[in-house]
């Protein structure tokens, strides 16, 4: 079995964090997002307030990537962006066989909770990283973005990375 490789560098990747557990998670995730140069980060949920500027975000990624607090990620999502839920749910597509949309918003739940039907039902795709146990949020975000750039067939280039 061979996975198709997308050859274009168009589009973008956005990341949405739903009710993240703590600042350690958000800071680490922001650092991963900053390393991959994603285009937008959205935060939703009561616990998300005040978690952004954490010591684990050593590169202060919030200064370089637009971050948006929102009451509803689906309302804030850019036009024609495809929501992709990344969660450990039974009917999700394992990431190795997943073809990434050109314009994707990857939605991650908290480490201590699942996304739930409120989000899963509104997402076009459900994606799962095939690991034995759940990953740390920053590792899950990094693996998802690594999967995206690997399959798009583009060697590392800071100018177009993660697009």
């Amino acid at each position, binding site marked *: *079995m*061979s*996975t198709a*490789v997308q050859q274009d560098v168009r589009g973008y990747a956005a990341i949405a964090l739903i009710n993240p557990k703590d600042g350690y998670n958000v800071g*680490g995730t922001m*650092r*991963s997002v*900053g*390393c*991959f*140069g994603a285009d937008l980060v959205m935060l939703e949920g009561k616990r998300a307030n005040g978690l952004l500027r954490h010591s*684990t975000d050593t*590169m202060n990624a919030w200064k370089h990537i637009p971050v948006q607090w929102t009451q509803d990620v689906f309302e804030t999502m850019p036009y024609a962006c495809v929501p992709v839920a990344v969660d450990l749910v039974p009917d999700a597509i394992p990431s*190795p*066989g997943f073809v990434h949309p050109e314009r994707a918003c990857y939605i991650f739940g908290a480490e201590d909770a699942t996304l739930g039907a409120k989000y899963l039902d509104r997402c076009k795709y459900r994606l799962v*990283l*095939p*690991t*034995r*146990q*759940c*990953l*740390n949020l*920053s*590792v899950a975000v*990094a*693996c998802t973005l*690594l*999967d995206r*750039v*690997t*399959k798009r*067939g*583009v*060697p*590392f280039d*800071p100018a177009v*990375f993660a697009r």
Partner: protein
Amino acid sequence: MAGLQGVQVRTHVYRRRGGEIDYLYPENVRLVSPAVVLCGVRQPETMAGVVRVCASFGVPDVVYTGSSFDKAVDDPRNSPYPPFHMPANAAHISIYGYDDPLALVPEGYTAVAIQTDVPAPDLATFEQPHDPVYFFGSERDPVPTRLLKECEHVVSLPGLHDHTLPVAVGMILYDRYLKRFHKVEPL
């Protein structure tokens, strides 16, 4: 593998598994591939993060050098680092402490160093070996030169900045999973 020259090493390998510690002779330790080696890891919290990632990807053995982790586990009150919690799934991982990790790499295994400070092939173009042992630096320092020159491959991770150690370990293990088991070809 050659031993260290001029570096004081522990006479025994410390093996921690499920809250118990064993002291083994190096010749009695046989790592199981894929294994992860952390050279000089400082923060025990980083170690806990790496162990969690390794457990998720089914990596059975983690090796560390240096004494920071030993101090944090054996004498937490006097440790300069904040309290940390080993993940529950660490019970299934063997954590080896030894200062000459190359002596623990079995014959036929391939040592791969993950470096960001030297020119190295990008992960996207890297062909994953069959039985790898991955060598990582610490939070601040790269893989020591004496170990780097013994590694068969050197690879760099994609990214605009340095990744945290657990994220770096997760990326290389995920890349191995994609390329070995799902035939995603290197570029």
